[in-house]
């Protein structure tokens, strides 16, 4: 039963992963700095999940990226694209709506 609870929490976290990542990419970040930013905000994400996710979001047009070779080692920086910004706004609204609905459900409020 305990294991199932933990699996449920993982599912819950996985569902908000994209939103969490997009929320931290209003300004340019490279993979490791993004991971640290998320850890600092109590949202740790496995590195094996986060880095490929950035590529997938880029492929979907939500992120733009570019290599910065001014420093060693060269790093690939990611930032929200205009499409990603719109997606972030839509997802944020959806998330807040969902939180309101869930709060009502959990508090047992009448519809």
């Amino acid at each position, binding site marked *: 039963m305990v294991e199932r609870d933990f699996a449920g929490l993982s599912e819950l976290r996985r569902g908000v992963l994209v939103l969490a990542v997009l929320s931290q990419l209003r300004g340019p970040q490279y993979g490791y700095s993004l991971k640290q930013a998320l850890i600092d905000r109590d949202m740790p994400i496995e*590195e094996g999940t986060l880095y490929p996710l950035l590529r997938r979001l880029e492929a979907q047009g939500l992120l733009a990226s570019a290599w910065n070779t001014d420093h060693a080692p060269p790093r690939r920086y990611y930032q929200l694209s205009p499409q990603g910004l719109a997606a972030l706004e839509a997802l944020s609204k959806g998330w807040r709506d969902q939180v309101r609905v869930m709060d009502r459900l959990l508090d047992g409020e009448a519809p």
Partner: protein
Amino acid sequence: MNAHDVMESWVRDVAGRLPRARRNDVACELRALLADELDGRARAEGRAPDRAMAMDLLKGFGTPAQAAGRYHDQPAIIDPTDSHHFVIWALGGAVVMGVHGLLNGPGSVDQGLFLIWLGILVVIFAAMAWWRRRRPGQMHWKPSPGPDRPRPALALLAMTATLVFPVFMYAAPQTFVQVMFLGQIADSGVALTEAFRGSWQRIVTLALLVLSAALYGAEIRLGSGRAGMRWASIVLQAGLSLMMLLHAAPMITPSGESFSPFVLDAAITTSAPFFRAVGGLFILSALYDLFRQWSRVRPEPEADGLAR
């Protein structure tokens, strides 16, 4: 191997699994990220990075195959949703070959035939999966009436065909040839031996054929959804397969004399493989109906399903 070598080996293995166009780019990014991660760990642990630390770090990323899979979705050659049907078709082919080998001797089936069959299935299922990915909307689901839908016209056609061909042809082969070819072909080739005319094998076969036609008649009135009729059909097919196989070999009278269905030797030689083939088809048809009966979606829940 030091920490750098370990990480470089891992990056190389990941990159090798990616499409060529993305290989270098992902490898460069992974190198930089792994270096950052390793530095972070070394700082946190207050010691220089080593091979063990690198190996532990890479555990978090998974095996190179798993990591590459996250960077690039490799389409499955056979869609996982098709696995069930693939196995059924593969086993179906094995059953057909098994029945063929059983009736014609083990040497009659080429040993590589099953592998060829699997190869053909892989190509067909891979083509279907590719087409679905390419045109996602074209192979969409369509509702079907289901196996129990009454088809009186089809049942009437099947009953008529059964009465004309197997029943009439089997009961009076010479008359059948005269009627079918308007007397233009000599009917002596299908003349029956006296021993066969009155044999129990002929009577039982004829009875099974008539019962098959009667079953189609019952289907016109009652529909095909009744379990009793499905089982009756399976039993009839099994019985007919047995009788056809008996026809292919010399039969024995109660007094121990050997006899064949036809008078002419040429007819006996020609008909034996035909009887064997028809017997084999009846076996396969009975097995297929058994499988359908076993895999049937029942309208009521199973008892243990209710208990859960």
